[in-house]
């Protein structure tokens, strides 16, 4: 059984005005949204720019916004997002600069992770002078950027450290004697850090990898609140530990 569906895809090429192109595809509803986009690329428009790699939700590179919600189109079935004759409105991730069509510049995401020393990108092989764990990854996070796209605070504060980096900071602090650098503390506890979150929990709602960034931000806040109260009561603070 095939469904005919309409895809309205946001298009942008540098130097050209933005537009929306409308395509119709005939597709098995058991196939994925990414399949429908690939079909358009293969059969109708070779200039359509989109990004993907693994096709099974482990690389996070295909993330986009479909009908107003961030998804990984590689694992989202057509039948789960529309009906026969239905329409999909497809946009690039929000809160990122668009490079072309559905591809955004992920630089702002990686810069945030770099601040908390979860650089994501490291050399494939150990370098001679590389410290152990120097190129740690944030477990579970597939670096898709969907949390930054869904966050209403990022929409008005582009300097906000954001869900993934704050969750990574929490993970560092929770792991054994893990600690953050002075620069990371400044970012985490600063004006655009964890106190900026306004508890919409949309990051956790869209996260495809069960990282629960909002839950981790709240856990981090709880830790900081307890620390401040202890400091106020003269029971010592972890300032010393911070500067370790």
């Amino acid at each position: 059984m095939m469904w005919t569906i309409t895809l309205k895809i946001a298009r942008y090429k540098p130097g050209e005005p933005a537009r929306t192109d409308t395509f119709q595809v005939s597709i098995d509803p058991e196939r994925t949204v990414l399949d429908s986009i690939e079909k358009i690329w293969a059969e109708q428009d070779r200039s359509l720019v989109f990004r993907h790699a693994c096709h099974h939700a482990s690389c996070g590179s295909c993330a986009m916004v479909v009908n107003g919600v961030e998804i990984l189109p590689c694992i989202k079935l057509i039948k789960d997002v529309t009906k026969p004759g239905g329409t999909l409105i497809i946009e690039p991730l929000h809160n990122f600069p668009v490079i072309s069509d559905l591809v955004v510049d992920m630089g702002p995401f990686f810069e945030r992770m770099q601040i908390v020393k979860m650089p994501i990108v490291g050399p494939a092989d150990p370098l001679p002078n590389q410290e152990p764990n120097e190129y740690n990854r944030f477990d579970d996070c597939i670096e898709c950027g969907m949390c930054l796209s869904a966050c209403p605070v990022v929409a008005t504060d582009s300097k906000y450290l954001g869900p993934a980096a704050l969750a990574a900071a929490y993970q560092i602090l929770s792991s054994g004697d893990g600690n953050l650098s002075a620069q990371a503390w400044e970012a985490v506890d600063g004006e655009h850090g964890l106190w900026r979150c306004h508890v919409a929990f949309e990051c956790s709602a869209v996260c495809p990898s069960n990282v629960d960034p909002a839950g981790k931000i709240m856990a981090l806040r709880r830790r900081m609140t307890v620390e401040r109260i202890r400091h106020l009561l003269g029971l010592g603070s972890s300032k010393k530990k911070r500067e370790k």
Partner: protein
Amino acid sequence: MPPVDSTSESKAYPGQSGRLPRRQVWRWFAFAKRSLGTWGFVLNRVAGLGLVVYLMLHLVVLSLLTRGPDGYNAFVALAHNPIFLLLDVVLIAGIIGHGLNGLRVALIGSGILVRWQHQMLIVLGVLGVVLLAIAAFLVFRI
């Protein structure tokens, strides 16, 4: 190569200039397809902004006092008009919504009852509706 089986319409998306607009305040209110947590976020933003506007109006009304009893009494008489009473109910809705949801946000934001944030929103929402119904009854009865 232009699209073969497609039509094209011109539309600007934020970010599609290749650069992001600095602030996209409207995204605060794009809650239709979002989760319950975002509905709570929007409720607090709308109610908070509404209360700020009310505070301004309140100060303007209070400034009528400087015109003596006549000016103020004329306004108080007007305030008994059903439309003003309805606005009072809207104001109370804003206070209850912002207050109860603010309590939830303060608890969650301190790391308390985080897992129950959805349930809290529903329970406090029901409580808010009950309180608002009582308040509306009292406003129109008095």
